[in-house]
């Protein structure tokens, strides 16, 4: 799809943005029940390695590897979710962090999947973008339905007061496990897509920083509504591209405007700053995170804002 429309570069950017959107939704589901996971990169790794084993070692087509990868990641999610039920807050963060670390160590030491050499020459999936174009609207639809359903409300109530939710008859244990497993499954799908687009991965591909980035997508975009993960993942993934474009515009400014004292320094600083590579991206992420926590601790989009826009519909629903 879109073969004639997009050049390779744009295509690649969109694919990574799309995979990040899926990863952001994988964080959003457990977060809806109040579980903050730093281990979504670990579940992506489970999905990615499982899918790659299916396609490379067992010769299955990509779609089968994709489904098995997501399924196995979901099962691992439920298994990890059991101990996660008993703990909250910072301890859950540490548990999921530890899980992510364990997955990395296994990937590093298991020679069957390449060990330290990495998993090489994974068959390239030409249709990654097509998968994303189907998967992302499906996810948005599902979470839109969830937000307006009783199950979604039950998840919100667990997020807001777990004890009160349990006493009101909501099966907190099963709901949290379900959310954790579903989130892991979605992460597994993202990982399977990633592996067959990048065609190479090793133990450090799905590292802890990736888990932190996934968390940031939702924190920046807003975790109280299903649009938040989409917005946050797109914003943070495409931000380097915006800044790169800004730099190109900056270069269009005539030099004669810039060869006196304050202007030339400012120009040089901006020119240097907008030159994006990995380390600097993290600095910018850090700044954004700090600014967000001060100005909009609930993220760019909140459910209250969206509610205000849709008052007529609310009126009819209750009328």
């Amino acid at each position, binding site marked *: 799809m879109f073969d004639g429309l997009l050049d390779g570069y744009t295509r690649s950017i969109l694919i990574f943005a799309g995979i990040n959107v899926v990863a952001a939704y994988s964080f959003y589901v457990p977060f809806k029940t109040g579980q903050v996971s730093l281990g979504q990169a670990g579940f992506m790794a489970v999905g990615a390695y499982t899918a790659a084993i299916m396609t490379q070692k067992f010769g299955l087509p990509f779609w089968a590897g994709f489904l098995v990868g997501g399924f196995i990641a979901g099962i691992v999610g439920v298994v990890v979710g059991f101990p996660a039920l008993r703990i909250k807050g910072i301890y859950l963060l540490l548990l999921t962090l530890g899980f992510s670390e364990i997955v990395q160590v296994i990937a590093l030491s298991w020679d069957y999947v390449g060990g330290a050499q990495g998993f090489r020459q994974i068959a390239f999936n030409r249709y990654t973008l097509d998968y994303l174009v189907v998967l992302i609207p499906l996810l948005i639809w599902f979470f839109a339905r969830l937000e307006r359903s*009783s199950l979604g409300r039950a998840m919100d109530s667990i997020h807001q007061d777990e004890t009160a939710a349990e006493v009101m008859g909501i099966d907190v244990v099963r709901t949290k496990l379900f959310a954790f497993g579903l989130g892991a499954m979605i992460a597994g799908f993202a990982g399977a897509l990633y592996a067959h687009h990048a065609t190479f991965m090793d133990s450090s591909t799905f590292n802890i920083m990736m888990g932190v980035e996934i968390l940031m997508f939702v924190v920046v975009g807003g975790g109280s509504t299903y649009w938040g993960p989409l917005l946050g993942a797109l914003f943070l993934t495409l931000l380097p591209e915006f800044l790169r474009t800004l730099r190109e515009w900056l270069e269009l400014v005539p030099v004669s405007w810039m060869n006196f004292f304050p202007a030339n320094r400012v120009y040089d600083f901006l020119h240097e700053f907008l030159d994006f590579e990995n380390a600097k991206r993290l600095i910018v992420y850090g700044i954004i995170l700090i600014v967000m926590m001060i100005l909009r601790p609930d993220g760019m989009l909140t459910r209250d804002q969206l509610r205000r826009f849709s008052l007529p519909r609310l009126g009819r629903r209750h009328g």
Partner: protein
Amino acid sequence: MAELANEPCLAIEGLTKRFGGFYALNDLTMAVAQGAIHAVIGPNGAGKTTFFNLITGVLTADTGRIVFEGRLLDEARPSRRTVRGIARTFQNIRLFPQLTVLETVMIGEHCRYYPSILKGLRDLLYRPFGEAEDERVMRGNALELLEFLGLADQRDQKASDLPYGDQRKLEMARALATRPRLLLLDEPAAGLNPHETEHLDEVITRIRDRGVTIILVEHDMGLVMGISDRITVLNFGTRIADGNPREIQDDPAVIEAYLGEDEAP
């Protein structure tokens, strides 16, 4: 059914809960009659909140048993006990701050219409757009309860934006939405002004008239003496008196527990 009417709604036998060496509740035996307003009173630290937590399953008893409607209450988790028909409110209001008033009550309905996650998912997936049938029913029930408690006009407000007295009522509405046959009210008058308290005894009586047995933990003696059919007095985790309001008011042990030995007549 005649048998059921004689059977107590809740029978408690030898209930004991220790925290370390401290007996929060010591060998408590009592019965709550069907359809009664039964108050449990006592000085601070007498074990009233522990008593509630044991009935709702928030805590587990060390010894003793609780029989609800003739059957042993052996479900471990609070949510299972709520499904059995026991609901409660909290002494320190615990609403869901981000939900609206209507949504809050619908949380209480959830356990009856969506006993499993699969049912929730099925409703989500079978009807790709629009509202599930059960959602509509739940909304109707919730509105009926809000009207019953006089909160219908505030249904779209956030729970945390309500005045304190209304938050207490909303907690009751949420608890009633689980359709309990036994409702535990933990200090419903705490923090209310005299006018709101006066209104409260009418609310509680009307809830009882819906066929709900009520256990009331309360410090406001005016309220307790006015509406209770029976009162159990606890002190240091043991029962020191049990009877109707008049008997309790005249009981020397109760007066001593409340006023101290010196001032007892």
